[in-house]
């Protein structure tokens, strides 16, 4: 029972931190609202573009490269899902796990080499 309580308490703390993390900006901004001046003027609310008048919508299509990196991230990030439990349990698993993971990572490495050769990793 103690263990369960301690377990739940620990996550309660995390929740407390979450509340505080949200509360602080809210409170600070609320306080700021009481203190700060409010003198609206048209020019203040225009978008900043180094001094020239803003033209057309800024929400342009993202460059395709970003997606490619996102894909790479997804793939490699998920691989760490396998690496983490493996690393934690490595002591108990022994050499078999090492070989197994080696094969796994070699596959991954082939993937990386593939991306490399296909010039996916070039930011140009």
């Amino acid at each position, binding site marked *: 029972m103690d263990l369960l309580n301690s377990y739940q308490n620990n996550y309660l703390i995390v929740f407390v931190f979450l509340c505080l993390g949200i509360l602080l900006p809210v409170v600070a901004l609320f306080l700021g609202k009481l203190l700060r001046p409010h003198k609206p003027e048209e020019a203040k609310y225009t978008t900043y573009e180094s001094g020239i008048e803003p033209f057309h919508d800024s929400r342009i299509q993202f460059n*395709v490269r970003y997606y490619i990196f996102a*894909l790479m991230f997804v*793939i490699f990030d*998920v691989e760490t899902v*396998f690496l983490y439990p493996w690393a934690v349990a490595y002591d108990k698993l022994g050499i078999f796990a090492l070989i197994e993971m080696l094969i796994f990572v070699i596959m991954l490495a082939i993937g990386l080499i593939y991306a490399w050769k296909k010039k996916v990793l070039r930011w140009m």
Partner: protein
Amino acid sequence: MNSVPLSAYLVLALILFCIGLYGALTKRNAVIVLISIELMLNAVNINLVAFSKLGTAPSISGQIFTLFTITVAAVEAAVGLAILMSLYNRRKTVNVDEMDQLKH
């Protein structure tokens, strides 16, 4: 505070699954459809993990299954987005209902 019953997880998963299915079947934007599919797969994850901890016969294999599901979900998303990008480059659209060149 008692621990959450299994059925709550199952219902949550079911709701998530249904939302995902609804989205996957009705949305026009292919990106949203892909996200909906991820939602369905995550519903599966909830199920598996809940069963693995609270099921009739708890066992670790559910969690292992989840690892694989997560991976597969990632792979599907990656492949799906890659294909979508290549489609977008040609057709300049991501709407599913505009992909109708292959009819009759």
